[in-house]
């Protein structure tokens, strides 16, 4: 059993920022991460970090753009916190030595990005995330923060009080991938979940193979609602063969999209008459998909992205990484020819419901980063707003976990924030497959008021039993189930959605769940058993896919990234509210909480979003 004040699950940008903040509060802090921190997917981020740093810009403008971009599903207190804290956090990175691109005068450079009214995207070439991740890890090393790398968090140690809001998190269970040992990690002060996005739900994604939504699924089963999961961002420019991302920076710098008829369709077909390629991601992704669907695409349903006219010098200076990506993964020399691109799953706007301090409804459990939903992105995330989210809310979550500041949050979380029950007709049963199975209980130990040690030990025991069962029986290989799930999501829960498709997806997810009852690990080894890890991950993907699809079926409107064939309008009257899906006694329960449009000075009035 390991014991620390604060345990951070996940060593990406959010996790490391949380750990550094907790450490600065004097807490004995450890990171438990399935990948070594420098291998985290934050490293793949290309475009940049939005921060109002310059004269002529202000956090208020950034907040306004973000609220608009979110299609008014962001919570104003969260959005304003993001925009107020981002300059300081960004400069903090600069003070830690991050190799930002520089202006002539030696200050950090900023560039335009989609949906922004000011060029406020701070960047380091087209590899901002790589620099951010490594800079952050350098600070972790500098501070001597303990890192348990290649330790997979499989379960949260949470008491099983009837009401989720009475539950407490005392730590986590970590599986040491190298040795196969299952260890308890007791957190005297708090646990921060920062395990990243769930892109592996889809088969065409910009996300890493390790992005399987583990933390969100664990928090969900432990009793924290998942919020706004139906809002999935599809990035308009991914390479068709692999899903590798071509940064929005290309369009920010002036890259042009055209179809097989040679039309600059964003303008010529009226998708965004004012800003064209620089419209919000959802707008561009739909435009491309429409072009492809209507037969004006290139093979593989793609369109072309051209940056040749920007000139070599500018490309090499600001987008060199793009040259390498296009070359290595698509065989295209982007200095000489346009690149084929198509929409791909990119970012999950929803996630573990938290308040603006990173706190969840379970005491001692915090979340930050892409796995969390503090509600800064609402229905659509602006490019360059995720990295500031990592550093702003990572820091806040770490600080709060370390100090348990009783600071009251403006955003309420958990079942008591519920204002309305949801209703939706599912074609199949949802949730647990076998009554009385382990799946029904919260993820943690079945102990009400025991000591932290006892709760964590109990969780370790149960995890041991689960692993034992998976290893001993014979059955289905997880890879088959995962592939079917990915196909189902790509087919029916993609850029375009309709009722029949979403219902079919629920059926397919159900089938995956039923087959998962017989899943088995065939590698008998305790050493680096990736078969086991992937099997556990697959279960997490199933739970998240179900919550997502349920929310999507219920939301009968068109908002942000959520497009519904039958409902081609945004319905503020009925749908200006957050979707919550909670795992209740083994079944997903759907309910809603209000969106907070009230900001520091005034209210954000929903307006039509036009670009």
């Amino acid at each position: 059993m390991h014991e620390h004040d604060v345990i951070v699950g996940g060593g990406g940008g959010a996790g490391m920022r949380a750990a550094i903040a907790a450490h600065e509060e004097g807490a004995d802090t450890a990171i438990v991460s399935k990948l070594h921190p420098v291998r985290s997917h934050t490293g793949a981020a290309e475009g940049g970090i939005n921060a109002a740093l310059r004269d002529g810009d202000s956090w208020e403008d950034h907040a306004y753009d973000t609220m608009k971009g979110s299609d008014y599903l962001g919570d104003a207190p969260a959005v304003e916190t993001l925009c107020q804290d981002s300059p300081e956090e960004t400069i903090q990175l600069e003070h830690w030595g991050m190799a930002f691109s520089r202006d002539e005068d030696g200050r950090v450079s900023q560039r335009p990005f989609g949906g922004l009214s000011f060029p406020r995207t701070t960047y380091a070439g087209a590899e901002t995330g790589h620099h951010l991740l490594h800079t952050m890890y350098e600070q972790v090393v500098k501070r001597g923060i303990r890192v348990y790398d290649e330790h997979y968090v499989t379960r949260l140690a949470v008491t099983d009080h009837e009401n989720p809001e009475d539950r407490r998190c005392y730590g986590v269970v970590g599986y040491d991938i190298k040795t196969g040992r299952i260890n308890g990690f007791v957190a005297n002060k708090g646990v921060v979940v920062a395990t990243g996005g769930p892109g592996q739900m889809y088969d065409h994604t910009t996300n890493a193979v390790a992005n399987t939504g583990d933390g969100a699924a664990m928090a969900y089963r432990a009793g924290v609602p998942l919020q706004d999961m139906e809002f999935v961002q599809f990035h308009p420019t991914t390479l068709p063969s692999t899903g590798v991302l071509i940064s929005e920076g290309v369009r920010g710098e002036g890259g042009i999209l055209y179809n097989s008829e040679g039309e600059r369709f964003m303008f010529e077909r009226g998708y965004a008459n004012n800003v064209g390629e620089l419209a919000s991601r959802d707008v561009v992704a739909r435009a491309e998909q429409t072009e492809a669907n209507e037969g004006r695409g290139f093979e593989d349903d793609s369109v072309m992205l051209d940056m040749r006219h920007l000139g070599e010098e500018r490309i090499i200076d600001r987008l060199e990484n793009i040259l390498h990506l296009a070359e290595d993964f698509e065989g295209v020399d982007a200095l000489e020819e346009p690149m084929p691109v198509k929409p791909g799953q990119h970012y999950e706007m929803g996630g573990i419901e938290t308040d603006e301090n990173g706190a969840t409804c379970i005491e001692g459990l915090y979340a930050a980063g892409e796995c969390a939903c503090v509600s800064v992105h609402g229905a659509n995330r602006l490019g360059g707003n995720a990295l500031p989210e990592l550093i702003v809310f990572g820091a806040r979550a770490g600080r709060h976990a370390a100090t348990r500041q009783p600071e009251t949050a403006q955003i309420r979380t958990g079942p008591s924030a519920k204002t309305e029950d949801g209703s939706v007709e599912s074609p199949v049963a949802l949730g647990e497959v076998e009554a009385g199975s382990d799946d029904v209980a919260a993820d943690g130990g079945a102990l009400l008021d025991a000591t932290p040690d006892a709760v964590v030990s109990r969780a370790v025991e149960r995890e041991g039993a689960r692993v034992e069962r998976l290893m001993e029986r014979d059955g289905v290989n997880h890879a088959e189930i995962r592939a079917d799930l990915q196909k189902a999501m790509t087919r029916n829960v993609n850029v375009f959605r309709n009722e029949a498709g979403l219902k079919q997806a629920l059926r397919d997810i159900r089938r995956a769940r039923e087959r998962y009852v017989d899943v088995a690990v065939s590698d008998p080894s305790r050493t680096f058993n990736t078969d086991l890890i992937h099997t556990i991950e697959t279960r997490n993907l199933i739970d998240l896919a179900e919550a997502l699809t349920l929310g999507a079926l219920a939301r009968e409107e068109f908002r942000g990234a959520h497009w519904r064939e039958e409902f081609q309008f945004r319905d503020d009257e009925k749908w200006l509210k957050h979707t919550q899906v909670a795992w209740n006694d083994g079944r997903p329960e759907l309910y809603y909480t209000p969106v907070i449009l009230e900001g520091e000075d005034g209210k954000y009035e929903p307006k039509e979003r036009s670009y």
Partner: protein
Amino acid sequence: MSTQITETETESETETEEQPAGDAPAVQQRRRMEAKRARAEEEEAERTAEESALDGETYTLKVFRYDPEVAGKERPRFDEFVVPYRKGMTVLDALIYARDHYDSSLTFRHSCRQAICGSDAMFVNGRQRLCCKTQLSDLSNPVRVEPLPHQEVVKDLVVDMQHFYDQMDAVEPFFQTNDLPSGLEEQHQTRENREKIKMSTRCIWCGACQSSCNIAAGDNQYLGPAAINKAYRFTMDEREGEDVKQHRLAVVEQEHGVWRCQTQFSCTEVCPKDIPLTKHIQELKREAVKNNLKFW
């Protein structure tokens, strides 16, 4: 189309390094693409010739296997997997295919599949490469996949990276500066200076260089190319003060530091991020010499 860095290209890379900066990257890019095209055509021709004999639709992987824990697998061996080929398939795709379709115990690290996480460096057809960045079509068939040499094998293709991480830690891999501006003020850095350190900041900790280095293989304490490159990244950053620089030079100048490098270029050749490692090591040697002269 071919994507891996070929021997000839690596040479041309080394040449261009000696050229002045300016438009060099664009020229390099062109040259790389040209070489690639030529090579792809060449290989395509070769393959078509071979195809009558071989099954054109498949690649055969010969994969190193070892598991210390499972009876029958504790003796290293090679397993063969025949993988159906589709255009654009990388070595990583092929490994994933083999694992998901034939043997779920086949073990290797991978995550980003876009050459940024640094976890899938392996020894492929006798050379350190990132599997996700290596097109099967660039390799002769069968394809031999082994773990990185000179590192302890944990299982199958997974090696223990601890030593690599320890060497990285040894150079104090974090920014140190004496005069940090306050509040929202930035530490200005010239474009030239950023340009100077740019390549060194690209390292993804894949370990390919360390594994390819003869000196590192023979001297366990040698800091190795990646760690020295990390030291370079900070030593050359104008934002760190002069005394920090002295301290950094002392670190790389120690017994198992820069002077061990015998300029064999193997690290530079294998680095998937095209970092001119040998050149960086040489520059640090020069700095160290200059530095010593000061005290004479």
